[in-house]
């Protein structure tokens, strides 16, 4: 965290939410967002991320805790006084108003001059490259165009905060990637603060300054994308973000930052300790498929295990190998599709190797 004034632009303090007065949907949520940051709330459906967004927008009440923007609590502020822009998954473009009228709506609500509204709407139409579409109705636009209009409408009145609730969920893959780029581009250019909700991790990883991974109403880890991917703090994050291999084993020795683990097949593996307590005997080791190498290799390595070959899949830019350990744990390995990709016959033994800095030991209780 940098200076105090920066970090306290938007703060969630011990926010809890319950719909039925029995179970908590959001349990003790804390988050500090800096001005201009792009923070993504990532999690499986039902993890409470949309509820957090709705509490921030003012459409759901806060059961306990507080949300502050620039130091002021917005708990009792009506949604229309919060000055927060919002992009909905369904876009929520008013079907009976034209694109220009849609864009002008938040401005006319703010009682701007007609000529000012016209100028500003023109600017934003240009910004989203839809100058010729001002007189069309949302129904006459394609999905990507609607998305851009929805985005422009949430930005046009320069709100202090922009919320996006799975805004790209309804688009096809290609369009989604293009829109990710456009949103990032606009974010860099205009410098607004974004709280973005998604269940798509690629989207989160490519766009965010920081990602808060949600599960069961709790933030599992909140960190920049590379940290989240390279140094997951618990087994859920390791499994949720990207692909991962999990091997369970017994802790044989605790060191300062690493643990030695005995895994099936009799080998000892040294892994970085993520959250294994000093007294715990069982743990899970995670290692990413692209961090594993197959012997013989020129790469340096600290750990080695033997596994039986199961299958080899040709994916295109890489080749995916499936191996099996003695206790039938499946291990996936990704190898770049070059001349070095080896061939195996069924049940042939292979030696898999990796570095200690790439593998992590977690507590056994995987959610």
């Amino acid at each position, binding site marked *: 965290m940098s200076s105090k004034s920066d970090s306290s632009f938007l703060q969630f303090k011990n926010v809890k939410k319950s719909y039925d007065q029995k179970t908590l949907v959001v349990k003790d949520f804390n988050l500090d967002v800096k001005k201009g940051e792009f923070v993504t709330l990532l999690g499986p459906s039902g993890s409470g991320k949309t509820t957090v967004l709705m509490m921030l927008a*003012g459409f759901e009440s806060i059961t306990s805790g507080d949300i502050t923007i620039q130091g002021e609590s917005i708990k009792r502020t009506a949604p*229309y006084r*919060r000055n927060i822009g919002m992009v909905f998954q369904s876009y*929520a473009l*008013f079907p009976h108003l034209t694109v220009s009228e849609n864009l002008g*709506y938040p401005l006319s609500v703010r009682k701007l001059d007609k000529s000012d509204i016209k100028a500003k709407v023109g600017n934003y139409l240009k910004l989203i490259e839809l100058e010729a579409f001002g007189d069309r109705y949302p129904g006459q636009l394609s999905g990507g165009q609607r998305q851009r209009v929805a985005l422009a409408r949430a930005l046009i009145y320069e709100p202090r905060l922009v919320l996006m609730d799975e805004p790209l969920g309804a688009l096809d893959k290609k369009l989604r990637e293009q829109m990710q780029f456009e949103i990032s581009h606009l974010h860099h250019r205009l410098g607004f603060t974004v709280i973005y909700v998604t269940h798509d991790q690629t989207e989160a990883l490519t766009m965010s300054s920081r990602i808060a991974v949600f599960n069961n109403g709790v933030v599992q880890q909140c960190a920049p994308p590379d940290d989240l991917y390279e140094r997951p703090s618990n087994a859920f994050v390791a499994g949720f973000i990207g692909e991962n291999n999990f091997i369970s084993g017994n802790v044989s020795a605790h060191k300062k930052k690493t643990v030695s683990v005995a895994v099936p097949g009799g080998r000892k593996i040294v892994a970085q300790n993520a959250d294994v307590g000093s007294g715990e005997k069982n743990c899970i080791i995670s290692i990413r498929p692209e961090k594993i190498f197959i012997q013989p290799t020129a790469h340096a390595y600290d750990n080695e295990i033997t596994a039986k070959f199961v299958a080899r899949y040709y994916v295109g830019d890489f080749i995916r190998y499936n191996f099996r350990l003695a206790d039938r744990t499946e291990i996936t390995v990704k190898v770049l599709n070059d001349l070095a990709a080896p061939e195996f016959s069924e049940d042939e033994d292979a030696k898999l190797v990796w570095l200690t800095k790439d593998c992590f030991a977690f507590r056994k209780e995987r959610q």
Partner: protein
Amino acid sequence: MAQKPIILSAEETVSARRELFRRKFMAFAFVSPLLLFLLFAFVAPISTMLYRSFYNPTVAVLIPQTIAAMKTWEGKSVPGTDVTAVFAAELKQLAKKRLSGQLAEALNRVRPGLSSIVKSTARKMRRAEDADLKEKGTELLMEANGVWAEKSTWRAVARAGKVYTVDNFLTALDLETNESGSIQRREATQIYVALYTKTLRIALIITVLSLLLGYPLAYYLANAPSKLANALMLMVLLPFWTSLLVRTTSWIALLQTNGVVNSTLIWSGLIDTPLELLYTQFSTVIAMTHILLPFMILPLYSVMKGIDPSYMRAALSMGSKPVPAFIRIYLPMSLPGLSAGALLVFIISVGYYITPALVGGTDGQMISNIIAFHMQQSNNWELAAALGTLLLILIVALYWTYDRLVGAGNIKLG
């Protein structure tokens, strides 16, 4: 860019055509039962009604020779013997066949008061000999009643003898033709225009009331959790499954002098003497609102159900206050349901018959009740048809106005 023409072989063309024909035939087969039903139960009776409203053959059939003889009469004086003698002879024939009553009734409609005169004259003609009638029919007629010496009587006969007439429409609009043949307001009782106005007013009040009651409920239903919404919907639909008569009579039980409402009010000390609630316009309005409310709620609900709650949220997040956001965003989106419901309730209540007949008394009668009266009691089917036709024209005109103002394409029933 010019497209390369698609060339089909003769065989392919034939099979494509056959396929098209088969599809058209299937489509027709699916709708034909409904089409046939509509033709027999809707189009045919309505066309008959329209026709009857200006087709009036009674007199022309009863006294054909008189009417034929009167063709050359210009109406400036009492017609000559060629007409009057024939009329006297035909009256005798009618009296013999006991049909003079029909003629009396038909003529009475054109000129009130003629009924008894025609009947008594017919009786007198019956007693006369055929030869006498041929010789001095005119004198006998004049002797029988002085009215036959007036040219206005004969004008009335001529009017009644017209097979095609707009008289019924004039009556239905409280108009009449005077001596000189121009149209003026009827001097006798004027009831129909007032009745149409009252009908429209009652229908409008019912529409507004059911809108006020139905809109918030439909909004709540559309946004409530489905379990609660289904239970409430059942309560909305329940009246549909109850007989109309039961629902109407229950209002009688509630509103009558010693009914539930009055007893409660007296018991609570709010009033001393029971209020006149039943057999008033008030009871018609309240009972019909109750009965027609589902017609308002159902289209509203189905349209509101389709409105994503994020529209209102979007409007609020952009800084619009709830009421302006509702007016600018939600209301226009619910307009298709609103107009469908309003139009449905209005049109149904304009032509409603049974409820005003049972609870309306004299004050709460609507145009349909008068139409029914002319069909069942006064036996004036032509006038009933004219009144019905006017009602139809009125509704079509209203629909047209609505289409011009709002656009009928906006209506959404489900």
